[in-house]
């Protein structure tokens, strides 16, 4: 009887078995990667704003504290987006004729607020409160990244649930002290470390000393027994990962 398939069909069959497997695994891998890529998360992608406001210039260049504009970050769930008046505190004096700032002046004249596009926008089914994070010792740049190095604002993190849980499952990894022992040579050591963009966690080469009740405590590691994070979890009464990873902590 005549053969209905050429000899090569054998090789094609074997190759397609392996190829099919690779294809399926590859497609799944691609889907998982794509889901975490900036294409979906917009991490690192600056969105268009009415005025190209440079955080880099205002934070690093001028040394303005975060709380000068985001006034309610320590006391409210919402950090606060400044009103036009806050801009005009300075811009009624400097760059008064800059065409780039015309929308700001127009807003001030008409009383119609600037409509900024939120860079870090969580979905409505996730409850988030800035004040609890700030008060328990989560630094601004732990979530927002080095804002002092961002010419235009973008979200640093993916804002996906696995990213939230990476800290909630092990809060000691990121907590930092509010105040460290002042070092006259380092102006950043004078202020609240939560808002210090350049804060470095303790290591053996870079110990961190905090002052509490007149006593100095020096830490050479972040995690583990004797680590600063472990200490802060206790000192700040951070609830157990079991509590802060419970569904209804964030999905209320």
């Amino acid at each position: 009887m005549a053969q209905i398939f050429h000899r090569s069909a054998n090789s094609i069959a074997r190759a397609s078995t392996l190829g099919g497997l690779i294809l399926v695994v590859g497609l799944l891998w691609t889907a998982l990667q794509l889901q975490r890529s900036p294409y979906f998360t917009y991490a690192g992608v600056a969105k268009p704003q009415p005025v190209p406001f440079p955080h880099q210039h205002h934070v690093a260049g001028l040394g303005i504290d975060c709380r000068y504009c985001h006034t309610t970050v320590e006391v409210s769930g919402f950090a606060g987006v400044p009103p036009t008046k806050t801009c005009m505190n300075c811009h009624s004096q400097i760059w008064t004729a800059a065409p780039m700032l015309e929308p700001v002046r127009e807003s001030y004249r008409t009383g119609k607020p600037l409509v900024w596009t939120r860079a870090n926008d969580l979905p409505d089914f996730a409850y988030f409160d800035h004040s609890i994070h700030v008060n328990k010792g989560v630094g601004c740049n732990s979530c927002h990244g080095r804002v002092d190095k961002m010419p235009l604002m973008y979200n640093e993190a993916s804002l996906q649930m696995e990213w939230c849980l990476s800290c909630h499952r092990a809060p000691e990894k990121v907590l930092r002290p509010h105040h460290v022992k002042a070092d006259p040579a380092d102006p950043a050591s004078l202020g609240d470390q939560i808002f210090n963009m350049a804060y470095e966690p303790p290591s053996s080469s870079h110990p961190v000393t905090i002052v509490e009740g007149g006593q100095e405590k020096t830490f050479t590691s972040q995690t583990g027994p004797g680590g600063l994070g472990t200490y802060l979890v206790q000192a700040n009464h951070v609830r157990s990962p079991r509590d802060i990873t419970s569904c209804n902590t964030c999905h209320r």
Partner: protein
Amino acid sequence: MEQATETKSPEMTERLLPGQAPVLTPGHTLETITDKIVSLVLRRPVTLGWVGGFVFFFGLMNVLLFAMAYLFFRGVGIWGINVPVGWGFAIVNFVWWVGIGHAGTLISAVLLLLKQGWRNSINRFAEAMTLFAVACAGVFPLIHTGRPWLAYWLFPYPNTMGVWPQFRSPLLWDVFAVSTYATISALFWFVGLIPDLATFRDSAQNPVAKKIYGLLAMGWRGSARHWKRYESAYLLLAGLATPLVLSVHTVVSFDFAISIVPGWHTTVFPPYFVAGAIYSGFAMVLVLAIPIRKFYGVQDMMTMRHLDNAAKVMLGTGLIVAYGYTMEAFYAYYSGSGYEYFVLKNRMLGPLAWSYWCLILFNVLIPQLLWIRKVRQNTLALFFTSLVVLLGMWLERFVIVVTSLHRDFLPSSWGMYTATRWDYAIYVGTLGLFFCAMFLFVRLMPMITIFEMRMLLPQSRVTTEAAHD
């Protein structure tokens, strides 16, 4: 030393009890079996009856597609479900379809391991039935989720939420039980088909059909090495499939039994669900076998012996199910729990009492007719008894799901359940999908296993003399 030959007469046949039909009507040879089964697909013209039936069920399948499209557009609010009855037709139909599939696995795997020769002519279409029933069942868990496009969340994969599904929930066990079941059933069916597909490849005249069957036969040449590997693979798959007969419906029953709802929280659920599954499955086998053997003239291969045996399995499993109902009632009384007792009373006398008494009539009383030999020998009576059992098993799930939920612990949350036209449309639609697939199957695939039928012939017995040749 010369070994004694196994048999002297080539006409060696199985011993039959008086009045018992043979598994294969005598008079067949190796050639006639192959020729008959091959001709059903390759030489038989497409008849008007087939086209009519196919078009009818294809239409019903489109009802399913239409109803699902509307469901996805509007949401599960188009169904009759609401607090307190959050599980309605979707779960009833899911359990019913999964149950039907069990007979196929039982016939092909368990009866194979038990060396029951009579399985050989009905196992192929029973396996196909399993596959299509599982496909119909699989529709419901997907569409009842409300957001079916996110149904892949049911699977444990490294998702961006950073969480796994709840491994302690029986609903997740269901995902594994049913997907394993579908995979093994499909593999078992396909592996069993390979030698027959090769026969089709060699017999087909149409070059396109030849290529398609050839592709599916995966280069089967029927060499001794092929057969040896085939036998091991088939036996292994049978071994894998056997525990599934018990495990799948046990897990399905856990969906209810693990909860604390009165009427669900009973230890009798797993065995009684499994028996019920086999019960409804054999009813479906009969509902399919009786018309198939008539319209395709294969009464000589699916003999009265097969129908008789299937009816006896039905009777046996039906009695286990009846025992389950009795025990449910007894537990409700013996538990001393007022809630359990109330559920029983509500089932028997409440607003949905009709469903309970219909269930007892259909599942317990009418099937007792099968004790009578004359009923088992009458294909029409058998056909209608099977239909009644299928309906009864559907009602059983309805009673379990709805009557337990609609009167829960708090009288303030009591309610009624009424299915909407969309509930019915989707149920009828899955019947369309199932029978549509069956119609295609009998036209395109060997519905009876050729080589296993040939093994029933005396000529296939290898004698030592022949083996030395």
